[in-house]
């Protein structure tokens, strides 16, 4: 008996020993990296501080489904990254808390020359980066040169840094034909000029995007390519530590240039991948705000006194797109028939629990130039059958529908959406085969035009209609993000003109006209603008979800 017990404890000890040995190796591996060691020490110091006087400390935990990809906003387009960097780094122009209207950010005011080729920004004075260095015009120039020029010393191109949002929004990189920024000029310490090659209608909107936030040049020098794990900006919160797939810890910037802000002492972004588990964590008080609430759980949250429900405003749309270059969908009447046959109301009710609105244009309704006069294609089975017969398919036909393998805010359940569409089309005699692909090949193959009908969506980032209409339907982007292979000279011309026009009213008219033409040509069926829901504990005050999914939490307070 005694020997048996000792053998068992030996077995346990062996396992424990193995853990210890392995952990010793791990400790050794960590030592050489000084930067990380430093970060860890800071974390402890602050951690113990927090325990000591946790009475007065206001700590807010924000839980989301996935971890950030990188904390260098310029080199990513990941929303989970922007959400965090938004708190640490700031942009020249800010968006209003609940819309894409422009407000002063790091630039207190700005001027545009009449020809739209020169933008002058007057910067806030007395602003300091978290590392104590001054924010000035030189810092703005270094950051934008870094985005524009792959050869720049801080571009880190040999470490696979690519500033693709920059090239998407400003027409390419230095030396590219379409690149709109000619040069960034430091006029004096607090004045910086952007000289453009061609006017850009949404230049100011771009300056509000989280991707173009200003990083401390001293930090770029210090951390080099490890800047993606060590963000240093001017924002309301300072970066403290990042435990991958677990948490990112930020702390109040005591010297923040906006008087009296932020209100929280600590801000923690935590990863809880499972939606149901995240809601449980909220209900048990472990977290304060959660993103990604299942629409089906919204009703339960709304009736719960301890919780508050939020819905983000519409900034996206999910759609069904046609490959218009090939048979049979090059037939406009067939596309119209399908548009009439899809019951979009039913999709909104069944899959979005009502948190969405039926779409008729490839643009969210709050946007500049949204054309409300477009009628859209009403759900009408009889009409659909008629048009189908007119198109020459009285006896029906067979068609492939590609469905997305991943859920997105604009398409919370692509598989079920595809099934509803399959049923809808069966009613008018079209047999739909659902095609499934993995995400990366799905994007590649639809861009290559291997599909007949497919599903996708688009989310806005700078609040400008160009980002929707040009990306999805401009003839130049066929095979890239124009997966309809739709090409209309008139639409292309309107989009081109609107892009370089700086009079916003004229731009609005051009986009309206483009939407009318697009509605007639039916390259796609806009389905839904979703309003993603989220929840917080009712102790959270002043939280306003922004359309772009990344909002500043400087005003947020806990009661």
């Amino acid at each position, binding site marked *: 008996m005694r020997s048996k017990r000792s053998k068992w404890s030996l077995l346990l000890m062996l396992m424990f020993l193995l853990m*210890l040995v392995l*952990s010793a190796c*791990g400790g050794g*591996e960590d030592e050489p990296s000084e930067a990380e060691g430093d970060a860890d020490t800071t974390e402890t110091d602050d951690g113990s501080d927090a325990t000591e006087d946790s009475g007065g400390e206001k700590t807010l935990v924000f839980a989301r489904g996935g971890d950030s990809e990188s904390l260098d906003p310029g080199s990513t387009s990941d929303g989970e990254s922007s959400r965090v960097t938004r708190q640490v780094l700031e942009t020249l122009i800010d968006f209003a808390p609940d819309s894409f209207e422009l407000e002063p950010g790091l630039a207190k005011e700005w001027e545009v020359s009449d020809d739209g080729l020169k933008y002058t920004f007057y910067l806030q004075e007395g602003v300091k980066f978290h590392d104590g260095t001054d924010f000035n015009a030189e810092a703005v120039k270094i950051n934008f040169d870094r985005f524009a020029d792959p050869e720049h010393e801080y571009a880190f191109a040999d470490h*696979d840094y690519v500033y693709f949002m920059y090239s*998407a929004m400003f027409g390419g990189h230095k030396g590219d034909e379409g690149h709109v920024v000619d040069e960034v000029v430091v006029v004096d310490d607090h004045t910086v000029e952007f000289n453009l090659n061609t006017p850009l209608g949404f230049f100011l909107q771009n300056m509000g995007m989280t991707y173009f936030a200003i990083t401390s040049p001293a930090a770029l020098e210090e951390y080099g390519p*490890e800047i993606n794990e060590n963000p240093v900006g001017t924002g309301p919160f300072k970066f403290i530590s990042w435990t991958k797939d677990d948490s990112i810890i930020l702390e109040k910037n005591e010297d923040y240039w906006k008087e009296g802000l932020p209100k929280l002492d600590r801000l923690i972004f935590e990863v*809880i991948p499972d939606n149901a588990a995240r809601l449980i964590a909220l209900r048990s008080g472990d977290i304060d705000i959660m993103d990604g609430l299942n629409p089906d759980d919204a009703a339960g949250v709304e009736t719960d006194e301890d919780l508050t429900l939020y819905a983000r405003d519409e900034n996206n749309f999910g759609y069904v797109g046609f490959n218009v270059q090939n048979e049979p969908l090059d037939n406009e009447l067939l596309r119209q028939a399908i548009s009439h046959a899809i019951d979009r109301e039913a999709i909104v009710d069944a899959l979005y629990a009502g948190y969405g609105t039926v779409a008729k244009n490839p643009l969210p309704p709050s946007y500049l130039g949204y054309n409300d006069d477009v009628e859209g294609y009403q759900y009408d089975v009889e009409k659909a059958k008629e048009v189908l017969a007119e198109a020459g398919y009285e006896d029906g036909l067979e068609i492939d529908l590609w469905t997305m393998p991943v859920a997105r805010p604009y398409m919370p359940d692509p598989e079920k959406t595809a099934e509803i569409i399959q049923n809808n089309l069966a009613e008018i005699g079209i047999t739909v085969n659902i095609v499934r692909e993995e995400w990366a090949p799905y994007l590649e193959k639809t861009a290559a035009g291997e599909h007949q009908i497919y599903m996708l969506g688009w989310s806005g980032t700078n609040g400008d209609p160009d980002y929707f209409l040009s990306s999805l339907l401009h003839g130049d982007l066929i095979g*890239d993000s124009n997966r309809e292979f739709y090409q209309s000279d008139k639409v292309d011309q309107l989009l081109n003109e609107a892009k370089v026009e700086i009079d916003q009213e004229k731009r609005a008219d051009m986009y309206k006209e483009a939407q009318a033409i697009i509605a007639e040509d039916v390259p796609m069926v806009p389905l839904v603008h979703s309003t993603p829901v989220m929840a917080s504990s009712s102790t959270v005050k002043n939280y306003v979800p922004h359309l772009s999914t990344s909002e500043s939490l400087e005003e947020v307070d806990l009661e």
Partner: protein
Amino acid sequence: MLSYTIRRLLMLIPVLLGMTLITFSIVHLIPGSPAQTILGQNATEAAIKSLEESMGLNESYFKQYFLYIKGLLQGDLGTSLKSKAPIVKEIWPYIAGTFELTFFAMVFAVFVGVNAGIISAWKQNSWFDFLAMFVALIGVSIPVFWLALMEQWIFAQELGWFPAHGRQNNRDPIEAITYFYVIDTFIKMDFTQMVTALKHLVLPSIALGTIPMAIIARMTRSTMLEVMQSDYIRTVRAKGSGQFLIIYKHALKNAMIPVLTVIGLQTGVLLGGAILTETIFSWPGIGRYIFDAINYRDYPVIQSGILVIAFIFVMINLIVDLLYTYIDPRIKY
């Protein structure tokens, strides 16, 4: 035995080399390029091409594999395409997380499983036997995600006894030294934090340990029953030994060999396959690390992650084989 151990360790080399070849080929067979995933759905074809080039993905497979192996031999597991950080540095916290979870899951599984099996065999056909085997049957068949959600609902939301997510209280983080938080807090003699770390382990360990527990219980019962009918047990009984001594001193030793094999294999399975538990309990472990990497087509992370798991798997089986000789001295290598 020493020469056996050395021989086994040498055998690791071809095994791991074979693993690299298999994972490398499979990983590159998955359709979809990492450049596409990194750049997202609004990427232009030109941007994708140029990123692939800078990541060295346009080189021939042979050359890519050669470079990878060359790096491995120099102790370089590669660099993550997603985080741009060296994998050697990045992977450790995930391995520690999974190890800690697996360790406690297996402690639960072995302790409960072996004892339930023994008692079931001892009191064969009693109500305890039926109940235990019924529970074990449910245990093997229960979906982990369902069990995990039920645990969360009852013990975290309704009763509030245990936390349902993560490894620590993020409002008051634990300072990482080894990344085994139980050990870290022990080193610092911070017992409040140690309790926190242990509390975080309870629910996921039970969820993860339930299937192995059930398998071990059934295995122990059947081998115990077999051993109990052998001649030497009859001899011991004839000599007047008590039932308790017979079982725990004489029978268990011989019954343990197949059970030990199962324990070893199950430990390996848990180390690599805890993805569901890790996801539901927000546990930053190796399963989630590799799963994310697969979605992202982060080739170096998939390759090196699987390699590390294979290495650990082989090592655990080696330890189990060495333990045989300890439990049964008749086994000689």
